[in-house]
């Protein structure tokens, strides 16, 4: 006690902005009541005998928060972890397991599946979740096309570089995984870990940093507990009350688009091959934007994710005529790529001869590239293939707004607070990277903690350099997705269509480039 009483009382940073009652994506009130209790300074906090200490305190028990806790449990079993979740614990598995996949599913890259312990290797098969409750909808190819454009991109697991497609694993680009069973499986593992505690139906009311950054972070929760931790991780979703509380700014582009998603049953004799499909749609009436059809663990079912205008989403979400919706989408998905309208109408005299010649040359060049693509595709079965036919909608229709947001960095408050997952960034679902990005940051964070623990340094040591690297990598993906969206959002611009098509065909032709893209840009499925 003498030690404590001798502690200098540093002026603590009191974060004046109280948590406002905000809602997360599930429409849940996060901080309904505000606590009147304030900690005067961190000396009081340090000597607060009633405070609960944990090495790492994670706020938010979504996939990202749970995955982080699980990773820490596995890699550093002696580290104490506390998880605070606003909702109830996931309900245990229903007795009659539902065969229809829920539309809230994620397309995950092999790396993400690995982080989640879903890629079973020999030693872990018995222990891990693979082949158990979490069912995977593998895919080893993806096809991206745009009607009225001759370009098709097909990626195959064979495009992966050798070390990516590990020999002891099935070759694949990724798998579609349902949110519910995944979170439940992770949660059960956490519950049984001796060093992990969980508070459910609990939100963060207040948080306080030590003035010099060396000290613990103090967190007050709605169940009137005071927690102290060496590392506070905000995995509290897109509305992240912690991010708002810290006043961390995000770069933001609102697309004015929404996504509509639901599960479909396929026609009688159709099964979805292990392929993820995405078509870019143009034209107001059709519902401009990317439309994706994703395989699930059930070969008879697929998930539709359609990112389009709010009017379209509203119209089709509210309609009772699901058959009309199916017909509409069927039409769009069954229309393959076409030849482009010519870049220059070859009416003599319209364009000065020299320019006309140049343009003609450019056009031939583009055509050659396009045709070369088509020719090559025809010979190696990389040409466009019609997706399976849809029969009916078999799930509720969900919608969510689309925005691209990104924080400037993940680490804050002298490395004592870290933002991960949707708390840090959201992206257009077009490329299915949302969760992959979050899990990537989880991996970096865990790696950093493992390294500092190995040499007995504090968790904050070196954290910034690990997270800065990951932030740079994630940000380039985020910008890439944003750029893709901007490019494909442009309609009826013939030169741009040529350019896009040129780009897509070049990508298709150039092996190393395609590999890079499979690796980097589309490590999830493009949808």
């Amino acid at each position, binding site marked *: 006690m003498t*030690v404590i009483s001798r502690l200098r009382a540093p002026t603590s940073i009191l974060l004046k902005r109280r948590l406002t009652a905000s809602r997360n994506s599930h429409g849940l009130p996060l901080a309904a009541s505000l606590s009147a209790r304030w900690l005067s300074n*961190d000396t009081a906090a*340090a000597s607060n005998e009633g405070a609960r200490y944990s*090495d790492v305190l994670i706020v938010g028990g979504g996939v990202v928060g749970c995955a982080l806790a699980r990773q820490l449990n596995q890699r550093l079993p002696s580290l104490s972890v506390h998880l605070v979740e606003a909702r109830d614990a996931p309900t245990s598995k229903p007795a009659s397991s539902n065969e229809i996949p829920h539309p809230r599913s994620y397309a995950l890259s092999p790396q993400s599946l690995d982080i989640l312990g879903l890629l079973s290797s020999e030693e872990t098969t018995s222990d891990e979740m693979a082949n158990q409750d979490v069912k995977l909808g593998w895919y080893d190819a993806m096809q991206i096309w745009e009607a009225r454009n001759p370009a098709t991109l097909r990626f195959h697991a064979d495009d992966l570089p050798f070390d990516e497609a590990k020999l002891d694993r099935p070759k694949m680009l990724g798998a579609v995984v349902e949110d519910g069973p995944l979170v439940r499986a992770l949660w059960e593992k956490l519950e049984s870990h001796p060093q992990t505690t969980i508070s459910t139906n609990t939100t963060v009311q207040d948080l306080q940093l030590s003035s010099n950054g*060396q000290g613990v972070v103090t967190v007050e929760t709605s169940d009137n507990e005071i927690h102290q*931790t*060496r590392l506070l991780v905000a995995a509290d979703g897109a509305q992240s009350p912690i991010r708002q509380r810290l006043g961390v700014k995000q770069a933001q582009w609102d697309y004015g688009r929404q996504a509509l998603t639901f599960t479909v049953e396929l026609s009688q004799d159709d099964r979805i091959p292990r392929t993820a499909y995405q078509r870019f749609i143009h034209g107001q009436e059709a519902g401009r934007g990317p439309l994706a059809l994703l395989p699930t663990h059930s070969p008879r079912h697929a998930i539709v994710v359609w990112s389009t205008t709010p009017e379209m989403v509203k119209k089709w979400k509210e309609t009772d005529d699901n058959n009309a919706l199916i017909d509409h989408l069927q039409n769009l998905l069954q229309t393959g790529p076409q030849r482009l309208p010519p870049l220059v109408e070859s009416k003599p005299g319209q364009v000065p001869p020299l320019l006309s010649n140049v343009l003609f040359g450019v056009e031939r060049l583009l055509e050659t590239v396009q045709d070369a693509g088509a020719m090559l595709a025809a010979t190696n079965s990389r040409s466009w293939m019609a997706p399976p036919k849809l029969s009916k909608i078999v799930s509720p229709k969900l919608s969510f707004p689309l925005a691209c947001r990104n924080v400037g960095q993940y680490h804050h408050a002298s490395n004592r607070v870290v933002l991960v997952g949707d708390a840090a960034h959201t992206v257009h679902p077009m490329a299915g990277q949302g969760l992959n990005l979050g899990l990537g940051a989880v991996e970096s964070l865990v790696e950093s903690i493992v390294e500092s623990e190995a040499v*007995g340094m*504090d968790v904050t*040591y070196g954290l910034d350099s690990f997270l800065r690297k990951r932030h740079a990598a994630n940000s380039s993906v985020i910008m890439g997705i944003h750029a893709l969206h901007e490019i494909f959002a442009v309609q009826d611009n013939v030169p741009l269509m040529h350019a896009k098509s040129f780009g897509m065909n070049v990508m298709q032709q150039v092996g190393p480039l395609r590999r890079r893209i499979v690796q980097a840009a589309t490590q999830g499925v493009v949808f």
Partner: protein
Amino acid sequence: MLSAVRQSHRRVFNSIAASLHRVRNRNSYIGQRYRGASSTSTSISQDEVSKFSGMDKDWWDPSFHPLIAMNPIRIRYILDIVQKQHSATTNHNNPNAPPLHNFKALDVGCGGGLLSESLARLGANVTAIDPSEALVQKAQEHAMQTGDPRLRNIDYRGGLSVEELAATEDDNHPLLFDVVCLLEVLEHASDVASLVQAASSLVKPDTGLLFVSTMNRTWKSHLLTIVGAEYIMGYVPRGTHDWNQYLAPQEVAQTMDGFGMEQVHVSGMVLTKPPLCGQWDWKLDGNDTDVNWIGAYRRRINPT
């Protein structure tokens, strides 16, 4: 010019690493009186105590990066040698136990507690001594403030030299450690032999290890730490280092030999790249002990 340089480093001496505890303003030194028992001989220079005591405020300041950044490789070295030494004798029945579980460690010249904290996190029962009471109090506060429960049991003792600690030992109460650390300490000692003798006497006879890190006295270290770091780059204030206090591994081995200790291993510690933009990135280099180096010693089995 050279003699002027020499004169200036003779006034205040320090190592590169210790210089890291940058003395910002010489006038702000707290005139801390060394409160060691006067009867016990001591290797501690009074100036040094005052100088370091004045640094208690910014010991954990991130601007100490050089020393903080050097700590992980010092620890890696210690763990590596300990593991080799103990692989034959101990069989861990708990694979999850931290690497220094149940080890008794002594950190001589603990300063702000950087090394002590690491040893404690790795499972050791740490005793940490430093002649400066002010610094040790700072170290203690820091350990509490970080909240890490593993740091609560570090036995910090301020105002104590290793000679004084060794003197408290008697046959009925042998004071022996598995690991004794003299890291970045020899260069501050006025009497290296006395320091080494006291530290050696605290090393467990069979399996105990004594670790030393300091700087070698070579033209290269003069160039890098004095001409480069002080005069050209200005990383540290001029006159921070006293090149004459630097020691070669052979010299330390010889002193050790006099007290029944033999060298187990020596390695250099080198920067992987020039420390531009405050990025100090160290690595162990077995071949280059020209500037910073670290070594391990144990009691000689058959004293000759």
